[in-house]
């Protein structure tokens, strides 16, 4: 098949809805009878569809930011005292807001981390301009024994014990940078860093 640049341009414009009605009819008539040209249309269509399924460049940018943070967390495992560094999997703060949603109406922030075999999910609810309630849950724990969660970084350390659903809660945390440690008995399971 010998492709012409002009054909490629025309097909791109067709798929982006930028042809006039007359041009569209002409091109579609050609596509109906020209197999290789129709295949080219399918290929360009797949390429454009692949870019659209990442929603938009903001979502792709959010994915990149999470991936970067994930890499940093992973590298930190080589540092002294950070062998059990948790890995960031998800942070809703990075996601672009859906169209039409104002930032002021979105208050909960959701985070997700991998700590070894466990997954830690955290929801943060603002209770004042400078403080949050934190509710977290440990997922995939193959034990009924409770965990202890210690949060360091504020004026004093706070600790909480998980309930039978492996849920824990901190009523009030001021804005700032915190280190969260997850323990079971005397064993440290993992460490994550959170910016409130």
């Amino acid at each position, binding site marked *: 098949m010998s492709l012409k640049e002009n054909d490629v341009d025309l097909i791109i414009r067709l798929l982006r809805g930028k042809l006039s009605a007359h041009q569209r009819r002409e091109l579609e008539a050609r596509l109906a009878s020209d197999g290789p040209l129709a295949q080219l249309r399918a290929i360009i269509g797949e390429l454009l569809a692949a870019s659209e399924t990442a*929603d938009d460049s903001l979502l792709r940018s959010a*994915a990149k930011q999470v991936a970067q943070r994930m890499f940093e967390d992973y590298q930190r495992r080589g540092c002294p005292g950070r062998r059990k560094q948790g890995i960031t999997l998800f942070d809703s703060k990075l996601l672009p807001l859906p169209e039409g949603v104002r930032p002021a109406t979105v208050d909960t922030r959701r985070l997700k981390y991998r700590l070894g075999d466990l997954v830690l999910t955290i929801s943060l609810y603002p209770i004042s301009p400078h403080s949050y309630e934190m509710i977290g849950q440990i997922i995939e724990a193959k034990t009924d024994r409770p965990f202890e969660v210690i949060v360091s970084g504020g004026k004093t350390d706070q600790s909480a014990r998980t309930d039978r659903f492996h849920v824990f809660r901190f009523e009030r945390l001021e804005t700032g940078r915190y280190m969260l440690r997850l323990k079971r008995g005397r064993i440290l399971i993992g460490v994550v860093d959170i910016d409130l």
Partner: protein
Amino acid sequence: MSNSGASELRKLVGRCRQGDKQAWVELIDLITPLIFSICSTMKLSRDESFDIFGQVAYLLLTRLDRIRSPERLLSYVGTTTRREVYALLRKTRFIDYLAEQEALNRPSQDETTPEVLYELTRRTELFMQSLLKLPWREYQLLRLLFLDGGNPSYKEISKKLGMPVSSIGPTRTRSLARLKKLLEEKSFEF
């Protein structure tokens, strides 16, 4: 995979293993369209797709040492994404049922077996694999023109790739012709 494409990917994976964050970001750029395409095919929400992306990226990061050849990278990503999507659909199906989420057109239990999931997303994976078989420069050009969004001008592309503006059009045409041939070799259904 073209020699330059395979060697570029091999270098990229090697640099990631040595702790090069920029290489990791470039690798993520390669696999992101495939992951989100599979999620979109299965009608996942944005949050769910983003969640799946995080899981798959984590698994890839922690298993980079086990990927022996770059040709297997996309297959690994495709398989892992499908597995995570399947697990999510199984978990949420019951919740959807209680919440009467039929309006979301979520596939039924019969429709989302691993085999069905594979068939639905195989086309996307075949396409992405063929794309990565192009010579690296051609792959980068098609990616900038089509996959990255933003509709860059030829001047911007010329600056990014160090390619003369006058050669972008002919290279684009040549790349698409080569991609078509690669897809035909994989019995891609147009």
